[in-house]
């Protein structure tokens, strides 16, 4: 049974400081209810919307980054429905249909799935205003009454709709990771902010009805909700049932989807062009100006990282999709040249610890020098990979100075090769029998290495010890000839 998944993503342009159609400050989070409002975003009689030009510029940048075709005009329409979070009882949005147009259409995003590249098509992007927020006192089911907070009303949103091109929950997650990376590279949204990135999913088994799942508030939940829905739908089909076209609600506490309302017919939103907002022409000049401000995007960066550092596509992708991480990588790479080792340690232990310690990447400040020092000690054989793993969280938290730490733990400074050679020579002198054996049988060298380890309490690097020992044996052999 083939699974078809399409996503509808609402992204708040949190990088903007004012709302979409009024001058009200748009970073409303943490504010007391109904304090980030003005007559316009409250929909008071007589007020009029005026478009925030920056929002248009951001939308164009996003459209370009998602490889979309841009419209030549921006047309806002009114979408009518009564709901208490909607102050005007219509939403100013866009509509892709005859006589109207979305700001952008027909784009695509490349994703990497099991080592293969896959294309997810973008159907369209709309600019629209966010409604307010309803608070159900005591939960949606038990509430005796609800309260409306209009702080969010009018916050600029992009609605990004994909074609049903994803065939598994994992693909959906990989797509969303990529999309978020692109948006963060463009610096239009801080997806860490609650509610700034919201996903509705359309999911169907081929030839069966389409189900829309709403209220998925995190990427982790997208995967869970989709997995749940696929199992549910497949089970019904296997039992000979049919899938009704409906909208379901993701209950993140119970981990299930529940029916919201049956979709028997399309709701009539009576779209018509907003007479308060004349169409805005998008000039080539404007587009070019915006394009010139678009930074290097994930796809370009993955390619560059592969070429510049000789990494494979997988490692490059993992690094690049986390903008902070790849920036850090490139900082380290300025002073450290074993790029593969650097990448590996960053995308495994380093990233794991950062997640485990729940560190906010934007706030804490581990220095590239600290990580590079760890790697150099590893390279010189002073630290084993095991020790590096142990030290990593302490280094990340900035709790230790690596030099002092090594000193205090009594680690021998055997990156000093002369010092190591002396210890090895001692071992050679003390074990003439073992030397005789080693000269005849190369495998017998291990006994001598063991002796060196004893002398150094296991702190000598086995590879280096072996290299030096081989040289010494070679000299002895030459002298005997």
């Amino acid at each position, binding site marked *: 049974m083939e699974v078809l998944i399409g996503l509808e993503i609402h992204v708040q342009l949190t990088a903007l400081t004012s709302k979409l159609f009024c001058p009200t400050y748009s970073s409303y989070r943490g504010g007391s209810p109904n304090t980030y409002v003005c007559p316009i975003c409250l929909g008071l009689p007589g007020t009029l919307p005026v478009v925030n030009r920056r929002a248009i510029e951001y939308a164009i940048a996003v459209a370009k980054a998602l490889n979309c075709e841009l419209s030549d005009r921006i047309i806002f329409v009114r979408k009518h429905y009564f709901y208490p979070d909607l102050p005007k009882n219509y939403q100013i949005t866009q509509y892709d249909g005859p006589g109207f147009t979305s700001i952008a259409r027909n784009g695509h995003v490349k994703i990497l799935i099991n080592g293969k590249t896959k294309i997810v098509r973008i159907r369209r992007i709309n600019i629209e205003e966010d409604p307010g927020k309803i608070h159900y006192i005591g939960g949606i089911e038990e509430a*005796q009454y609800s309260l409306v907070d209009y702080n969010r009303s009018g916050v600029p949103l992009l609605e990004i709709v994909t074609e049903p091109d994803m065939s598994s929950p994992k693909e959906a997650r990989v797509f969303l990771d990529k999309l978020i990376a692109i948006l963060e590279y463009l610096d239009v949204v801080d997806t860490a902010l609650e509610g700034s990135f919201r996903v509705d999913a359309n999911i169907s088994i081929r030839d069966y009805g389409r189900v829309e799942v709403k209220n998925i508030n995190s990427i982790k939940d997208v995967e869970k909700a989709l997995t749940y829905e696929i199992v549910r739908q497949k089970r019904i089909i296997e039992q000979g049932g049919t899938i009704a076209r409906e909208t379901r609600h993701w209950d993140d506490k119970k981990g299930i989807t529940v029916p919201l309302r049956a979709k028997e017919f399309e709701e009539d939103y009576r779209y018509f062009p907003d007479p308060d907002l004349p169409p805005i022409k998008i000039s080539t000049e404007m587009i070019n100006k915006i394009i010139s401000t678009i930074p290097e995007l994930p796809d370009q960066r993955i390619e560059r990282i592969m070429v510049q550092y000789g990494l494979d596509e997988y490692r490059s992708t993992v690094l690049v999709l986390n903008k902070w991480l790849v920036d850090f990588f490139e900082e380290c790479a300025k002073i450290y040249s074993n790029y593969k080792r650097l990448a590996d340690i960053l995308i495994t232990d380093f990233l794991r610890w950062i997640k485990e310690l729940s560190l906010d990447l934007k706030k804490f400040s581990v220095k590239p020098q600290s990580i590079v020092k760890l790697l150099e000690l590893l390279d010189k054989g002073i630290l084993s990979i095991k020790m590096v793993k142990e030290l990593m969280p302490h280094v990340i938290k900035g709790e230790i100075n690596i030099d002092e730490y090594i000193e205090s733990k009594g680690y021998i400074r055997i990156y000093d090769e002369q010092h190591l050679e002396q210890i090895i020579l001692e071992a050679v002198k003390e074990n003439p029998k073992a030397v005789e054996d080693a000269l005849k049988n190369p495998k017998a060298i291990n006994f001598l290495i063991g002796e060196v380890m004893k002398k150094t309490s296991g702190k000598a690097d086995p590879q280096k010890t072996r290299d030096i020992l081989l040289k010494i044996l070679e000299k002895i052999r030459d002298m005997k000839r």
Partner: protein
Amino acid sequence: MPVYRLIEEFSSDAYKVFEYVDSIYDRIKRVEDRVKAFITIVPKEEVYSYLETLLKRGYNSGSYPKLFGVMIGVKDNISTKGIRTTCGSKMLENYIPPYDATVIEKLKSVGMVIHGKTNMDEFAMGSTTETSAFYPTRNPWNLDRVPGGSSGGSGAALAAGEASIALGSDTGGSIRNPAAYTMVYGLRPTYGLVSRYGLIAYASSMDQIGPMARNTTDLALLLTIISGHDQRDSTSLPLHSIDYLKALDELLYKEPRLRIGILKELFEGSDDGVRKVTYSCIDKICSYHECIEVSIPYTKEAVAAYYIIAMAEASSNLARFDGIRYGLKVPVEGRNWVDVYTEVRTKGFGYEVKKRIALGTYVLSMGYRDMYYIRALRFRRMLKEKLDAMFSKVDVMASPTMPIPPPRLGEFFEDPLKIYLADVSTVIASLTGYPAINIPAGWNGLPIGLQLISRPLSEPILLYISAQLEERTKLRDLIAEV
């Protein structure tokens, strides 16, 4: 006294303003019970203390604002901070806006005094001021007749001497119609010339605020104050402000000869009395200018297109009235929002408003929008092309403002279609966004008005012809006995 005289008088003695205020309030006291031009009258003490503040400020700075003390009646769909703004509806009976419309800021900046909010058809839907949720306004020239609408309160306040000048709003003729019926001058500006910010929307693509006055000079004066670009209105035209008095004076000095189109169908379709009066009015200047007959052969279609577009937009604009943030309150305890909304909108809106919301919803609905709304938009484009072609031959087009004299109170409810069709002359300017003026034309027992339409931004031309006619008809500064 004309506003331009008041300005002179107060500039020589600012304290004369109090006598003037007293005289207006005396007049209101004497006639308002019968006329009912206002929904809200600002208490005299408040006007006094406002003027005292202005006087103090003027004394300190050495100069008074240009229109210091002039008392203006403002239609009750224009938001006034701190003054109740009802839109003639129960829905907003107790609504006090927390902000001023752009035009109100402008009036205040030149020292004008808003002493009352004038009656109107509910949400400007009507042409008789009878759909006001509070009471109808009566025509000061004949109390059995309507003053026209929807800015009927503004027209009546001027005709009854209860205000020196007034603001109206015009969607399908709501300034020109009451101006014609109350024997005053009223101008619908080019769409976008005057900011709509703060005007409670009826049909956004046609709504325009405009001046109403008892003479052409005052009309030009008020237009100068209220016009100009406003960043808060995206449909506002990006133009520099114009001094219309100066523009008018220049034209009166040069006296250019123009070509006036006589709109054949609109004269022929009018009542005999109306036709006679308006013909003889325009005839007074046809020897100086050149008058030629022109034709718009689809006047009925224009009325239909106007109502379809207006109702469609109204159904959207009036969706916001749900009683949650402002407006009519009903008990909410233990009820869901759908019930509450339903009760608010059932009780808050009158019959005419509900009818237009229902029809507007219908013409935008799937399966019908192509047949009605889209066709109306197509007609609108076609009409504009037609008008542009005609304006390559003539400078203005003349017609009776209203094809019938002011109806009796109650007539509208007996035959609403007849009253809708009476908008035939005025909707042409509304659909195209072109400027139009009502000029008092004469009497046929009742006031009769002449309408002139011109090209976009040709307000000076309209004012120029208006002034010429005013000079010949002497129909200026008229106040009814009541």
